[in-house]
């Protein structure tokens, strides 16, 4: 949209942040007769916390009864089947176990929480369910309703479905300031965006967005989690998500199959000062491996990659789902179980905003995400068997991939055992051709993540 056109338009709601929470809220807002936009500072959706986490749909036995975390977790878990079907997101209820090395008493607190939260669990012998579980595990809490999901597709599915239902999305558009006269004026790198309401869903930056308009009321500390990702070869090592007893810093290190058939171990938990520190550390990775090794008889050490993600850990102790000032809403401090809670938070926040604006339901809302299928059976990514047609669909879908990582997250090209060694150049060629830009303009993820520096001599 041109700058003057942008500045003349007044949206009913501007959602800041295109992670899973912002995208879910935007999509749920589209159920109402409201004009909606999503503003995202990165070049793609799902570039923050939503892209690097455990990808678990938690059962809800761990969250403290009475908190928003517990409420949203339990509702979100129940909504997940329907949402994933509508948005075409891979999801499976593989079940989770919390193993104890001490005995049944150590699990009593979790059992009590599960009961209070209305979540079905049972105490079992984990060896009856998993061959490779450590023989030190004396007993386990089993929750069959826990699951694994693709966090990229859940975020993208929500964002695309929002756009398909009329929302606008402004990518690569950092918010620089917020003020309010009759309406909100959101000052961005691309010009001003006006809206009657704002929903702050800016992840680890939500406190900074809050402070642009209101006085400081909570602080978000990025809590780094490091992960190890293993080859598909190891997919049969465990079928459940295996937790150890939770600690003060979170749910601890888990070992789980991913929805794509890899094995994942992590996360560590380290509080940081910087909101963009995604470095993995020797200590963090060793901690994950050592801790995970206690859960299984034989924890492999050969990984295909490691990564770090940041949880938006707030000093509030609970999710902040609120309207702290007229027309200014926020979904902040969304750490675990944020991904699980996203469907519930989306519905809850959209309902709050629609109530404030007195909006009616929009009968034309279509909850089913469009699925694009394009021809091309040439295999581009050999490790994950990704075809050219799938990559074309990723580029030409409602919110198309523009970067190598964008393609990778949408269709897994480059996420296999060779980590893009063979296919990254081919994917760059396809991106350049389809977007009609020079090859050297293709980026890995951010605007400055240059891949090649012009032609050879």
């Amino acid at each position: 949209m041109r700058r003057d056109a942008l500045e003349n338009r007044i949206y009913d709601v501007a959602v800041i942040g295109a992670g899973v929470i912002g995208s879910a809220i935007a999509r749920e807002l589209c159920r109402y007769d409201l004009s909606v936009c999503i503003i995202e500072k990165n070049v793609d959706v799902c570039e923050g916390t939503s892209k690097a986490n455990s990808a678990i749909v938690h059962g809800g036995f761990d969250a403290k009864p009475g908190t928003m975390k517990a409420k949203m977790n339990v509702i979100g878990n129940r909504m997940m089947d329907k949402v994933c079907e509508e948005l075409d997101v891979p999801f499976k209820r593989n079940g989770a176990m919390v193993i104890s090395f001490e005995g049944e008493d150590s699990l009593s607190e979790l059992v009590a929480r599960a009961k209070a939260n209305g979540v079905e669990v049972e105490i079992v012998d984990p060896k009856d369910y998993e061959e490779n579980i450590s023989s030190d595990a004396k007993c386990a809490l089993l929750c069959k309703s826990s699951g694994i999901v693709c966090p990229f597709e859940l975020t993208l599915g929500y964002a695309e479905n929002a756009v398909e239902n009329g929302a606008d999305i402004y990518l690569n558009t950092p918010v620089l300031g917020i003020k309010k006269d009759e309406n909100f004026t959101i000052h961005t790198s691309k010009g001003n965006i006006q809206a009657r309401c704002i929903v702050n869903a800016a992840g680890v930056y939500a406190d900074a967005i809050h402070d642009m308009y209101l006085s400081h009321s909570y602080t978000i500390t990025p809590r780094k989690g490091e992960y190890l990702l293993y080859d598909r070869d190891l997919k049969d090592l465990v079928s459940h998500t295996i937790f150890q007893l939770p600690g003060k810093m979170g749910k601890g290190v888990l070992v789980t199959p991913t929805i794509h058939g890899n094995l994942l171990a992590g996360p560590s938990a380290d509080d940081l000062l910087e909101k963009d520190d995604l470095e993995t550390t020797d200590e963090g990775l060793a901690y994950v491996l050592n801790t995970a090794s206690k859960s299984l008889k034989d924890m492999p050490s050969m990984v295909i990659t490691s990564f770090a993600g940041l949880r938006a850990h707030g000093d509030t102790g609970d999710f902040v789902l609120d309207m702290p000032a007229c027309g200014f809403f926020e979904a902040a401090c969304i750490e675990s179980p944020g991904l699980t809670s996203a469907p519930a938070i989306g519905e809850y926040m959209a309902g709050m905003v629609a109530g404030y604006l007195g909006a009616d339901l929009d009968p034309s809302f279509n909850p089913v995400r469009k699925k694009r299928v394009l021809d091309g059976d040439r295999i581009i990514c050999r490790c994950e068997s990704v075809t050219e047609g799938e990559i074309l669909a990723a580029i030409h879908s409602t919110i198309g991939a523009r970067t190598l990582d964008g393609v990778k997250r949408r269709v897994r090209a480059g996420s296999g055992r060779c980590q893009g060694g063979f296919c990254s150049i081919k994917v760059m060629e396809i991106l350049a051709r389809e977007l009609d830009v020079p090859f050297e303009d293709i980026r890995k993820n951010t605007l400055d993540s240059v891949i090649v520096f012009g032609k050879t001599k």
Partner: protein
Amino acid sequence: MKKDLVVIGAGPAGLAAAISAYEEGIRDILIVERDNLLGGILNQCIHPGFGLFTFGEELTGPEYAARYIAKVKELGIEYMLDTMVMDITRDKVVTLSSGLKLEAGAIILAMGCRERPRGALNISGTRPSGIFTAGTAQRLMNIEGYMPGKEVVILGSGDIGLIMARRMTLEGAKVKMVVEIKEKSGGLARNIAQCLDDFNIPLLLNTTVTKIHGKDRVTGVTLSTGEYVSCDTILLSVGLIPENELSKKCGVRLEEGSNNIICSEDLMTDVDGVFCSGNVHHVHDLVDNVTKEAIKAGKSAAIYLRR
């Protein structure tokens, strides 16, 4: 559809094996290649040093491949490009990416190898752009014609890394150093002399990269010595792994760790009628040795088919 012999891969191993089987009297042969041209990785190896043993003269990679490509075409051996084998069963049914199923009398595996990526080394730090395996950088430069970096640190002293040190220097990049964790380079002596020494590129032995820095693009590395070296590019030349995921599907037995195929003297794997040759069997130093082995595999497959 039936085929006497299906050769999987059209690199130096696949081409030579197919020609050898043809010369032994097998006519119903199909070579399946996943890339869009014959010759495999040789196409991007534009440096000389190939063919000294096979032809008694020094050729570049594309020249070496061209001789076998010409021969395959001259003999009229059938091949399919842009086609990947998706599955092989124990009774030698080969499923292609087009959906076509072939009942093969014999199969020669010739899929080559892949490079060990950064993830497999589990080097800590950030995940910026500017980290390439040496072979990917080689393809970017020699096939696509683009510069992957300006200021380079090469991790590992495998032959492709050494070749790329010279190649990038000749194109105007500053190759700051090659670091090797072992006390001795695994590369050929001639490559160390011609690719590093001749260009004054230091080789640091008993040294590795312990951390990668840079949020968007690489900005530097920390070495095991504690030293910080600024650079915008890291090339990895830290080992090759036989690409045997497909072989596993039909039950071929592999050596743990190396991923090498366990096979008989005549290059037949544990699966009856499935042979192997080249880097998919085990990683070879020289293409001439790959050719030699492939000729033997072709012959063995022909004997098997005639029996």
